[in-house]
């Protein structure tokens, strides 16, 4: 009951925050100089033609009318048509979103998993050489400039060694080949995903490692660990079974909280690797003044971050029996 009320309250909050973001975004995009037609510079288009296009796109109406339309359309799930692609924004996003989700969830799960594992090891060797090197290593990979790392990865593994395709998500050789089955196709995607995945992994696992390490050290000081020791359980059991599950909780939170950060990184990674995802589409639409598309992608990202923060909080409470609503 309490949990449900909490969730409802949070959802209301999210709705309000979201509405504000919605409005701010509208203002920003409409008040900024530059209209989308100006982008399509073409010496052949006369001012009259440009004006026709502007009125067709509904950009010549008073601002508040545009705002009302904008809200109505938003609540009816109509994000309008992309200025650039001329297709419904929803279609474009629906097309790009799965690619981003694939890359993101895999990289987050992989890096959290490895991070927790290594963080545990580092905490075992607290103060020792292993710990020092792991900490420094984690800090170093965590602070590498992401696009630069991506370029280096491409250079080494795709260009010099030729192990992986340079960019993209699928190769036409496989997908146009009528003989290729689902297995070949998914292997092809995996093959393309390897480098962006490895890049994101390298950037992110370090922070999970560090969080896990310090959280583990803190947990080991708790009374119930002392109790477990007193019961005569072996160190290994204590660490793996008593301490680690509790210590991993902050990692869960951090996954949620670092989402905004990962999305920044995701946009860069997708841009450098030409991964046809939502982040790259946002960067592209932003530089092409494609209002509807940029707005929708940004809103989508905002929703994802907001909701995942909620999910993390709920999950946290679910995992940690000490937290009750």
């Amino acid at each position, binding site marked *: 009951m309490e949990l449900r009320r909490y969730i409802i309250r949070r959802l209301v909050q999210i709705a309000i925050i979201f509405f504000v973001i919605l409005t701010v975004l509208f203002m920003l995009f409409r008040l900024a100089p530059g209209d989308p037609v100006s982008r399509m510079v073409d010496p052949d288009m006369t*001012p009259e033609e440009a004006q026709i296009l502007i009125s*067709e796109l509904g950009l010549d109406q008073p601002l508040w009318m545009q705002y009302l339309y904008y809200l109505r359309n938003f609540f009816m799930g109509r994000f309008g048509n992309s200025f650039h692609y001329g297709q419904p924004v929803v279609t474009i996003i629906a097309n790009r979103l799965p690619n981003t989700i694939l890359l993101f969830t895999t990289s987050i799960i992989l890096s959290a998993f490895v991070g927790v594992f290594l963080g545990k090891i580092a905490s075992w060797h607290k103060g020792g050489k292993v710990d020092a090197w792991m900490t420094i290593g984690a800090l170093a990979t965590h602070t590498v400039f992401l696009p630069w790392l991506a370029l280096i990865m491409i250079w080494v593994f795709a260009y010099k060694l030729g192990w992986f395709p340079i960019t993209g998500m699928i190769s036409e050789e496989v997908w146009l080949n009528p003989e290729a089955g689902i297995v070949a196709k998914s292997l092809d995607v995996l093959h393309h995903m390897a480098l962006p995945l490895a890049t994101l992994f390298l950037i992110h696992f370090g922070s999970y490692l560090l969080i896990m390490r310090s959280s583990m050290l803190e947990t080991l000081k708790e009374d119930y660990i002392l109790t477990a020791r007193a019961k005569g359980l072996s160190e290994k059991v204590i660490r793996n079974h008593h301490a680690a599950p509790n210590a991993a909780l902050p990692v869960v939170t951090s996954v949620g909280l670092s989402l905004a950060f990962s999305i920044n990184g995701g946009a860069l990674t997708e841009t450098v690797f030409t991964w046809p995802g939502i982040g790259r589409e946002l960067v592209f639409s932003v530089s092409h003044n494609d209002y509807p598309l940029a707005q929708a992608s940004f809103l989508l990202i905002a929703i994802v971050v907001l909701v995942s923060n909620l999910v993390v909080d709920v999950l946290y409470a679910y995992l940690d029996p000490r937290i009750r609503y």
Partner: protein
Amino acid sequence: MNLTHNVKTHVLTARVLILGLLAVMFLIPWRHAYGADMVKVGLLQEPKTLNIWLASDRWSRKVLGQIYQPLYIRDPKTLKFIPWLAQEHPVYDEATLSYTVKIRPAKWSDGSDLTSEDVAFTGRLIKEFRVPRYASKWKFIKKIETPDRHTVRFYLKTPKAIFLTRTLTTPIVQKREWTEVIEAAKKTEKPLHALLNHKMDRPVSSGPFVLKDWKQGAYLFLQKNRYFFGQDKTIDNRKLGPHIGGIIFKIFGTSDAAIMALKKGGIDMFWWAIQPGYLEDLRKHENIRVFYNEKSALYYMGFNVRRPPFNDVNLRRAIATLIDKDFILKRILQGYGIKMYSIVPPGNHFWYCPNLPRYGEGLPKEARIRRAYEILRKTGYTWQVPPIDTEGKIVKAKDIRLPDGRPMKRFTILTPPADYDPNRAMCGMIIQEWLRAMGMPAFSKPMAFGSLIQQVKTRRDFDAFILGYGNLSLDPDYLRNFFHSRNDKPKGWNMSGYKNPEFDRIADLSAGTMDRDKRRALIWQMQKIIMNDVPYIPLYNPKLVEAVRSDRFTGWVEMLGGIGNIWSFCRLRPR
């Protein structure tokens, strides 16, 4: 113990999972080659649409150019028009002011005949919906008649020079395919909007290729069109194919990736200008051939001649003298380009006027300063510290004053941002430095493209700017558009606000002159007027450097604007 066991299995699963993932990544079996007779072309970005009426970006046009064909195209060498979908050159009837065009027997990719009805339909569609980019080329057409299945007659309201060069090069669409679309569009509130946003999945083609598959974000596959009218025919003394199974357009996103793919043989051609930095490697590569072609392009610095300080032609001339085009060409363009002396690119031989004033041509930096100083001093400009001191040495000038004695206010040179075009942004920076050496308070300001256009075209509140056109039409009608005083209005093309009645008169005359040679004389005269008044200073025209693999296909046709043209794709054949 049970607990230990549990933990152990967890760790084990973890390790197996990671190893498995790594194995999958590394040990992918090398795929066998598929589509040996397909030309793979690298694109930088995804085409935005296959709806020809919406397609304003280069990438869509590159793809659609293989699908929708016009009545006439240009010969790659002479740039003269030759009949394409048309059977022969149009027949002009002066009395009725009409042109009659005979259509070649041709088929659409669905097997149906391409008739005069399709041509007339295309024209009417453009006129009715006032389709942007096409409407202005068709609005002077009074009436389109189809006396028979293979004849179209266009009646003009007034003589228009661009009828031959622009109207008749409009791609023709299939009536059957679009009838339903426009009927539905007409019923909506915003018909043009509906037409532009119609989703076209498989356009019916009259060209050498037809779209088979489009994986968003990855590739487009165009297959050979077996109904292509030019198949195995000789047109313009060139035997056409296509001799290839199809074209696969691959989307790369960055030049780096595409060029690496080119080096590795992943693509056969990269359809985009190659930055000079890549060239050294590409030239050394044994299986890569590099083509250098001119572009019909114009990159220039424009002034706002409506207000001080640039309403003074002497100041504009002095600046033209100060700008070292050799430096721009050598340093910024790395030598891949040509200096521009007119609004019309020199590659457009017929219309280009060769003897125009060349301000400060070939002079070293000091001589430029001296000459510009002379121009300005003579016309009443003064300095607190002039650029030439009493001993005749060059010094850094300070605080230039206008002839009326007022100090020159700070002015900005707007340029596109570096991400959009590093060359133009860099030119702005360099020109700023040159002008500052003369004591002018110049500030180069890169600006988002949309904002820049807004500032220059709509609000018309600016001092100077650097812009360019990467793909100027070969017909010089734009000269009239750029400088006719009628176009000096918000969103009009006369961005400088240039006003010259003499120029207007000649320009109007040229628009209605159907005789090529007479029109050329007028166009030359226009160029002379402009280069004398310099509302624009033409800077450079980058050379188009393109690279292809030479090991799989041959037969690329070079022309103004590069090798990516319909001739190339019709004549390519496997080695």
